[in-house]
């Protein structure tokens, strides 16, 4: 009977097609414990990265938005080819990649990860595949801008969070302003909130150098080594990747990749034992990036050509947003009703428990709850898939708000209605079901509709656990096209398209429920 409803069928379809749902491989065949064997048997190498970070690492091709490009995409593909498998990128927030790796979300993390001692403590690290320094970028013509790292003490300088740049800046006593998105670091310098940006050479090249209002100072600070990170037990996979990197260095594949992306430098030439520090040919990857972000095509052109090409990505994001939100709301409503009944009619200990639940989940941030469920529970042996974790966190959180709605609804029904039902012989649960809840629903419905729209928006937080929903798609595409304004209109339209039908539906139900609720009192 349930399956007759088209929306439920659609939802089930979504659930079975969302790849992130699978917690672990639970094929019928035994899963090899050896990491390399596991990858080979699967025929697929899952590598973790954050497309939101952007060029030149991993980003969406503006000209072909469903296409993922970047020098690390090329490296991952080359490694996979060497292992005889295909490569698939798994999206995750950059500063959480190592945690996601240890959760088992992918086989290794390959995304501008800098070699460091503290990373070595939690992960196996490959040989370095790229070397670069840190570069300072300042606003052109800013006479007060620092000329070296000695001038940054006590002044705001932008960087990536938990990066080597942040560490250097902390040591130098700067006020660090950390941004998840590379573009934001430089925008902050342009508007004058940060007096400089310190970031990896490729980032300075791609975001600082392409902006006429900025200038990147000569000279590099520190030396950072990009490495691939593995789980501590996955020695075999690390050795295979080290071998692959060795071969790719020797046969010129790596150099060709760095030249294509305009990243060939003396440090890396030394790393790969190459005497020729001059890049050859045209950096096609960099030039095409510069062209795409240089000047935006007119808005109408973007509406006609670029945005339609981005629709599949937005549609996928919207479907994920919708399925996470609808399932979380179902959980919130069911649990909310139980909490409201427990608090209104239960014995004292149950009432206290319900109050404690509501206060705990209403009084702590959703992001904290989501992080605990996704990253904390695995410590207790419970590893939920990103999708299930997202639905659970949103559902548990909103259940607290829903229970208060229903409690208000129950309180709005005169206590004498319960007496009337009980005097007719109805049990309390029968009275609840047939008399109190139907009347309470009318009062609870309008705030419930509000909550669903809020939940739809709060579902953007699940991108923190590696789910690419609507807001994340906007972030990724906005960063790679630098078209935040135009795409902002597009993403807003998507949220309205998926949210408004629920508002209209709720209004109709509200009207029907409310028709006869005028109290019919005594003569």
């Amino acid at each position, binding site marked *: 009977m349930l399956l007759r409803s088209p929306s439920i069928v659609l939802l089930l379809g979504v659930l079975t097609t969302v790849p992130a749902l699978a917690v672990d491989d639970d094929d019928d065949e035994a899963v090899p414990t050896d990491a390399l064997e596991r990858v080979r048997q699967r025929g697929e190498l899952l590598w973790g990265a954050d497309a939101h970070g952007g060029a030149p690492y991993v980003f969406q091709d503006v000209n072909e938005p469903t296409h993922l490009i970047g020098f690390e995409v090329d490296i991952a593909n080359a490694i996979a080819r060497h292992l005889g498998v295909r490569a698939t990128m798994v999206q995750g927030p950059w500063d959480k990649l190592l945690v996601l790796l240890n959760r088992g979300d992918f086989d290794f993390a390959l995304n501008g990860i800098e070699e460091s001692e503290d990373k070595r403590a939690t992960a196996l690290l490959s040989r370095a595949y790229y070397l670069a320094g840190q570069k300072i970028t300042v606003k052109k013509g800013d006479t007060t801008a620092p000329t070296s790292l000695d001038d940054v003490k006590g002044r705001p300088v932008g960087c990536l969070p938990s990066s080597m740049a942040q560490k250097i800046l902390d040591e130098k006593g700067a006020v660090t302003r950390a941004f998840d998105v590379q573009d934001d670091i430089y925008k902050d310098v342009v508007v004058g909130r940060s007096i400089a940006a310190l970031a990896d050479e490729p980032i300075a090249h791609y975001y600082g150098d392409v902006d006429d209002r900025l200038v990147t100072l000569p000279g590099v600070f520190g030396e950072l080594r990009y490495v691939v990170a593995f789980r501590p037990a996955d020695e075999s996979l690390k050795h295979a990747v080290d071998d692959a990197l060795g071969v790719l260095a020797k046969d010129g594949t790596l150099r060709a990749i760095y030249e294509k992306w305009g990243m060939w430098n003396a440090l890396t030439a030394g790393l790969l034992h190459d005497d020729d520090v001059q890049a050859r040919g045209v950096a096609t990857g960099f030039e095409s990036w510069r062209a795409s972000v240089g000047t935006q095509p007119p808005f109408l052109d973007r509406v006609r050509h670029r945005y339609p090409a981005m629709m599949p990505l937005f549609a996928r994001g919207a479907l994920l947003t919708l399925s996470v939100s609808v399932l979380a709301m179902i959980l919130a409503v069911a649990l909310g009703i139980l909490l409201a009944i427990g608090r209104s009619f239960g014995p004292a200990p149950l009432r206290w428990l319900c109050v404690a639940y509501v206060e705990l989940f209403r009084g702590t941030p959703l992001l904290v709850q989501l992080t605990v469920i996704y990253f904390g529970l695995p410590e207790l042996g419970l590893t939920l898939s990103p999708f299930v974790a997202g639905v659970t966190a949103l559902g548990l959180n909103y259940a607290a708000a829903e229970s208060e709605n229903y409690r208000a609804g129950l309180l709005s029904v005169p206590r004498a209605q319960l007496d009337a039902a009980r005097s007719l012989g109805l049990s309390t649960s029968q009275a609840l079901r047939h008399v109190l809840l139907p009347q309470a629903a009318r009062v609870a419905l309008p705030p419930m509709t509000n909550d669903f729209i809020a939940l739809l928006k709060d579902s953007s937080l699940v991108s923190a656990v590696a789910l690419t929903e609507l807001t994340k798609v906007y972030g990724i595409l906005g960063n790679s096209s630098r078209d935040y304004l135009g795409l902002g209109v597009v993403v807003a339209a998507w949220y309205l398209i998926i949210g408004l039908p629920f508002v209209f539906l709720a209004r109709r139900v509200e009207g029907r429920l409310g*028709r*006869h609720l005028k109290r019919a009192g*005594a003569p």
Partner: protein
Amino acid sequence: MIAVEKLTKRHPGAERATLRELCFAADAGAITAILGGSGAGKSTLLRCLSGLDGFDAGAIVVDGVTVQGGSPPDALRGRVGFVFQSLELFPHLTVLQNCTLAPVVVKGTPALAAQAKARELLKTLRVDVADSAHPESLSGGQRQRVAIVRALMMEPRVLLYDEPTSALDPSLKAEVGRTLKDVAERTGMTQVVVTHDPDWAKETCHEVYVLAEGALTRS
């Protein structure tokens, strides 16, 4: 019939008992009035008789079933019907659904049979409305008779009324009296009416008691 023997009820924390060793009995077909000013304990008495609240000592006997003080009064619910002063019809249900809900849900009576019986009782008590009508669309008198039918649907042995004539003009009060007499005649039900209207009580009821300071005396 109903017999009340030394019924005592003390509210938690209260210095004096609200009802003190209260005794009375009423036969089938009898209409008994209980008069009393506000705060005399009328509502408490009705809640005890209907099984909504327990009591501390004494006993209530309804048609051979005895509920002792200190024990759960659940056995009274369904056996004793209650017509509330505010009627408490269920506003989200139609008139017909108001009448059939309890027999269908509590007794498992088939819906069609319950509807047929409800229509018959509504007709008997002169409620002539469409099946789909909701309580809000009825006149005050019609609503009161629907509340009586709703209680009668459970085939109680005793029917309690809380202030059925309050705020009514004389002609409507007479109408309520007629309804009670109709019920007594057609069902042989024992009816107990709490009221503060002595004239109406003397006109309508076979027996009149006065409740004052928790004690009952025959008027």
